């Protein structure tokens, strides 16, 4: 395999863990995953791919790295999965290290390439199969593995203790009451219409988002609740590290918590991968065709609130804005037009990106890539120069990112490429511009 600056990156999750691998172990795991877990779908894809390379133009890593073919989607598959298939798993530990690097840090499983493949081959899925192999072998970038470990131990992705969770909600309820006295974050309210679930960075580092949603729910008059037990975190990095058993456990708890609280639907905060985990990958691994209780993404929720007039805009946001389309909710679910409706309702000047909607480029932070942590940040940045150029071309002051990974990823890009832009969630703008009825004012 070719040496690149990235192959020199030090990560104990790759460098140390391969020391324990034996050829037998590698072979057993590869064989298990290829024959027991994925046989049929893999065969169809491997028989179908004609190695035409049309998928290359789709990938931000390929485009950003001066169209180096090594970073084309098909090359990533060729250098990982096809190697394993061709050699029937007889590859040295060092190869597993390289493959792990490729599949975890050089592909954000964004699925843009599938749209460019004439046969619609789900290349991201193929790379996820390799992630599964790496996970079973224990060769996963350390920070991503740690996130999965957090899911396994605490059922949330940031080691949030149960008391911290409840305490933060109570504190944010008080913060929200400073703005609107009747604000609540109703805990454990059985029979509420909506369970609101979030991802762990909200209580851990972005607590004000919880206060914001309390204000939005209060103004919109929603009957809602949040669990005071584990099961509140809808995110799922285990889905991306390839630990499907932990993924399933987290999703099961999330859905059983919603069922225990007797809610009619779950509304989730602004996160893309969490939507994928809770709506697609998690339920399917557990045996559900679709989520057992309807799940509404924040984009759809805000769309409904604005469309129905439950939230009215007092004065539109003045700064010019653009958007990042989260892959999992826009390419994966088609929420791009609703996102634009919301942004246009809230903001005076919206400048769209090009390409846009399902054709927009990935932020290169999703798919678990940002969770691979500081060692890989530079690689992520180099892999997404095209995103910096695309955002810069809009001339907008603010990038709206209705996804936590996009938010952090675009912030990194703004910093790395010195773009002089601000990055915001929809809810941050919504609380700023929404009309608070006199009856609710202090």
């Amino acid at each position: 395999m070719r040496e690149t600056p990235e192959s020199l990156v030090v990560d104990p999750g790759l460098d140390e863990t391969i020391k324990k691998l034996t050829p037998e172990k590698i072979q057993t795991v590869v064989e298990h995953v290829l024959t027991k877990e994925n046989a049929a779908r893999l065969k169809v894809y491997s028989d179908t791919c004609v190695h035409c390379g049309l998928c290359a133009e789709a990938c931000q890593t390929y485009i950003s790295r001066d169209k180096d073919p090594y970073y084309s989607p098909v090359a990533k598959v060729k250098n990982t999965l096809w190697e394993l298939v061709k050699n029937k798993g007889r590859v040295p530990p060092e190869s597993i290290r390289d493959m792990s690097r490729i599949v975890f840090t050089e592909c954000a499983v964004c699925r843009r390439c599938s749209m460019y493949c004439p046969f619609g081959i789900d290349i991201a899925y193929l790379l996820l199969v390799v992630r599964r192999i790496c996970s079973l072998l224990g060769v996963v970038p350390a920070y991503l593995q740690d996130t999965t470990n957090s899911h396994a131990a605490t059922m949330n992705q940031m080691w949030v203790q149960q008391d911290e969770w409840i305490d933060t909600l109570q504190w944010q309820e008080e913060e929200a009451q400073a703005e609107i006295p009747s604000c609540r974050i109703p805990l454990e309210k059985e029979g509420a219409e909506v369970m609101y679930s979030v991802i762990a960075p909200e209580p851990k580092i972005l607590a004000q988002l919880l206060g914001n949603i309390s204000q939005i729910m209060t103004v919109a008059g929603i009957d809602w609740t949040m669990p005071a037990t584990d099961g509140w975190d809808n995110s799922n990095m285990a889905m991306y590290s390839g630990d499907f058993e932990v993924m399933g456990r987290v999703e099961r708890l999330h859905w059983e918590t919603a069922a225990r609280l007797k809610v009619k639907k779950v509304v989730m905060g602004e996160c893309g991968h969490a939507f994928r985990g809770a709506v697609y990958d998690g339920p399917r691994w557990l045996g559900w065709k679709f989520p057992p209780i309807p799940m509404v993404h924040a984009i759809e929720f805000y769309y409904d609130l604005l469309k129905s007039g439950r939230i009215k805009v007092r004065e539109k946001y003045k700064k010019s804005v653009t958007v990042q389309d989260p892959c999992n909710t826009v390419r994966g679910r088609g929420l791009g037009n609703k996102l634009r409706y919301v942004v246009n309702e809230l903001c005076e000047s919206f400048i769209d990106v090009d390409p846009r909607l399902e054709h927009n480029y990935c932020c290169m932070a999703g798919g678990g890539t940002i969770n691979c942590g500081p060692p890989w940040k530079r690689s992520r940045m180099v892999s997404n120069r095209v995103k910096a150029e695309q955002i810069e071309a809009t001339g907008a002051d603010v990038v709206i990112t209705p996804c936590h990974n996009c938010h952090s990823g675009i912030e990194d890009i703004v910093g790395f490429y010195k773009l002089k832009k601000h990055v915001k969630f929809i809810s941050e703008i919504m609380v700023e511009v929404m009309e608070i009825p006199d009856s609710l004012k202090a």
Partner: protein
Amino acid sequence: MFCKDSWDWQPDRKVVADLSRLRSSYAGIEEFAASPDGRVLAALVKTEDDQFTVWANGQEWPDKFELAWCLRFSPSGKLIVLVRIDDEWTVAADGKSWQERFEYAWDPLFGNDGLVVGIKYKRENLYGIAIEDKVWEKSFNGLRDFCLSPDGLRAAATVQVKALREADIFGFFEGVWSVAVDGKAWDKQYINAWNPVFNADGNTVAAEVRTDICDYTIARDNEPWDSRYGCVWAPVFHPRDNSVIAAVRNQGSWMLYRNNEPFWQGRYNQMWNQRLSSDGSRVAAIVSPDFGKWTIAVDDRPWPKLFSDMVLAPVFSPDGQRVAAIVKDGGRWTVAVDGVPFKESFEMIWDPVFSPSGQQMLAMAENSGRFVILANGRKYHKQFQKLWNPVFSPDGKNVLLKYIEDDKYCRQVVPVEELLG
């Protein structure tokens, strides 16, 4: 059970509390709770000076608190709430606060008789369990899942026995999780441990444990089963012979095991929430025989009727002869009894309640914010603003209804025949 015999079972309707009057007396009403016998309505209220107290049938508790939440009646009618006093948390029960104060205290559980309450607590960044104002001798770096023995006198919890440095994946995979019983951790440590459970006598504990990246099993009193599985779900004890029964994932499908031996022969796409009849002679579990299809299997025989959306944990009749479960199909909820769903479906439905003989069954359901009672699947003609789960009298002749209608909380005893129509 809980002296239900001594409750007033005379058919009658009493207005216990007028909620609009209550609302006008306080700055805010945060939570309501109705006592098991229905005689008391309690509310967590916010006073004009921004403090909290508990109001119960017109009486206020003497103490006020900086913050309070989680107002609950125990099965025997003890009223508890979690309170913050001088920036520290504790439990207040029937108006009296515990002596012990904590950095944080949460997740109250009751023993079956309802006299004992246990909570999780945090002190100086360490975690433990307190039962009736007595704390564990040892506390731990982390604590997650927690249960009480049926008599409420013992507690078990999954605990993190060693601190880990940030992102220490190697330390994590050496295993730092275990199960602590009454504050003493098992000697063996695991990568993870979840869902501890006591047997009926409260003298043995089982839990799910993880021993390698993808190796899972059940451990009982510090001893893991010999075999490892691709995944496991929460174990339960047999009420008579103390064997441990759990669903395990074996070669890609789920099976029910007992003491590490196959118990059911059926292989399922998914299986969880197994429940036993009170004498342990029958077992029912949620199963998915095929992808996207769910039902209840009783003694390894799935109901022929399958449901697409969701099936919740099975409920046995007291004599163990009948099994009911909440099911959801096509976006609507209902209850299925012995495999047959009610004709009508709802926006929401609650766990069914069997009469002592098992012959009758009640369930409460909700459509567009209005609550109804279903008696053997038929809708009782009255609707309610809010309803609590109905309770059968010990002789099975009457039913206690607790509800809110016209903003008044009422306690009503209704003959079963009236509900059956």
